[in-house]
């Protein structure tokens, strides 16, 4: 269970320029739920995702995941929390462009120092599930947008996290690939993962497997 309690997030761009990205946000997400965060550009969707992933800290309020306060974790513990719990599919994928598909997917496993067979098994499994195994040795830079996204999804899942977060997953995809992403989403949902998606793509409105749509406006839930 994920709980956001009275979250306010203020970005200090400079002394006189402070941006209030979120104001007094309260939100509870149950295990296995698939949530869609909707809202205009700049409304604060990405900020919520990054707080849940402990990539940033709230200015005030608490983020509690499975009973643990993750909004106050020291940096190293935040990393470990992400490694063990979060699969983040970034809007720009955040792959390392000069590494191969396989090498990118291996990255979240590196700190765990697994046996090479174990690592290989995990990588093969996610590559198959997300249909990228035919490109395993290609350098990511040379892949199409859709292929890169599948690498990002595979990487987010290689540690088998409970929580999957996707930021604007269809922003860079065409109609057909977007439809394909919905298939992937359905599969992830069937694996009983908690899924949080931030998007302003109307494609996500009214889907049967989406549990809740939450509208954000100017940093507040409406």
């Amino acid at each position, binding site marked *: 269970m994920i709980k956001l309690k009275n979250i306010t997030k203020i970005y200090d761009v400079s002394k006189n320029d402070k941006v209030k990205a979120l104001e007094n946000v309260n939100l509870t997400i149950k295990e296995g739920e698939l949530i869609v965060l909707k809202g205009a550009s700049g409304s604060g969707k990405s900020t919520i995702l*990054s707080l849940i*992933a402990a*990539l*940033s*800290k709230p200015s005030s309020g608490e983020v509690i995941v499975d009973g643990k306060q993750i909004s106050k974790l020291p*940096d*190293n513990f935040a*990393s*470990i929390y*992400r*490694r*063990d719990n*979060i699969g*983040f599919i*970034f809007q720009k994928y*955040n*792959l*390392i462009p*000069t*590494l191969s598909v396989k*090498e990118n997917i*291996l*990255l*979240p*496993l*590196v*700190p*765990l*120092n697994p046996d090479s067979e174990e*690592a290989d098994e995990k990588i093969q499994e996610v590559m198959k599930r997300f249909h990228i195994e035919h490109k395993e040795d290609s350098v990511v830079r040379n892949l199409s947008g859709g292929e890169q996204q599948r690498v990002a999804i595979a*990487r987010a899942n290689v*540690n088998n996290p409970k929580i999957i977060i996707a930021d604007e997953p269809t922003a860079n995809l065409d109609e057909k690939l977007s439809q394909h992403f919905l298939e992937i989403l359905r599969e992830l949902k069937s694996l009983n993962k908690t899924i949080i998606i931030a998007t302003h793509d109307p494609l996500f409105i009214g889907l049967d497997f989406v549990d809740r749509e939450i509208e954000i406006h100017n940093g507040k839930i409406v």
Partner: protein
Amino acid sequence: MRKKINLYLIEYAINAILRQSYKNFFIVTVFTILTFLLTSVFFITNSLRYEMDSTVDTLPQIIVQKMKAGRHYDIDVNRVDKILEIPGVSDAVARVWGYYYFENAGVNFSVVGIEQYENQYKNSFVNLVKKFDFDKLKENSSMLVGAGVKRTMENSYYKEYFNFIKPNGTLKKVTLGGVFDGDTNLESNDMIIMPQEIVREIFDLDPSKATDIVVKVANPMEIQTVASKIKLMFPDTRIITTGDLKVSYQNIFDYKSGIFLALFIVTLFTFFIIIYDKASGVTSEEKREIGILKAIGWTVDDVLKEKFYESFVISLFSYGLGVGLSLAYVYLFQAPLLRDIFVGYSQLKTNFELPFVFDMQTLFLVFLLSVPIYIAATIIPSWKVATLEADEVIR
């Protein structure tokens, strides 16, 4: 849980080096050149120090010179007998020698006269006397020269003989009777040896006189005592002991080292500038990469470990390469160019060999001055980036 070495991190580090091949090639090149320069300078210095020390060890324990008007003057040969009476003296020999300036080559050679049946004050002379027939040399008016001397003379087209100009202005023709190798390169490569009679003729030295007297003392601890006794006996002399010579050799050497110290400082300075340049600049690509790694679950420790491996591999590789090249340059190729700066006080050191002196201290010092500094310089900026909020970095 994570006790064993994380090979994935090392693999990633090596991969990272190869991915930035252009930048890292540059760094390895600069690093290697600097290590090479530093170690070469140290190697040359050490070898020369060693050579100097062994040269000094072959020098006479005591030299007695007659002084007149504040200058070194010819000494009476019969003083040898008086000196031999001093307790503790095991031998005393009158030497006949001098410098001769070769105008064509612009070099001074030492011309040394040897008397076949006298006690020789140098081991190498004992061998020379055994090897060459000095009666014949005297008969033919011939000389023995060091290999380097021979080369210099040949360069000035003196292949068979040389005409020495005597103090009275007339010429003395001396033919080449043979070539010898000396005890130490530094000394004997500018030495010309002849029967004493010929040297006396060239320098116009009376048979009752000698250039100086060398004294051997049985117990090295007594050198100073014997020296003062000689001084007491002949107040008109200057006494030079091995200790004094060591000091003056050291002075020449220290002067040369000064030049190298300057070079050393410049090298270090360059190194620091380049390192600083690198240290202050984590490229936006590298920054982003660190942010990504953290976002997907790497801790700051993981990132720093990886960066450590990266810089360790680069710096150790460059260090090893630099040291290897320097070993080859100094000892295999005898340090062309650099050694000319050092061995510059006589141009006749063409045949001079730098003896191999393996010096752990040098290697360790250069290691300390390069590898840890480089590692720190790369880790610190990465550490700064790694401790930022991941969200900020990858945005």
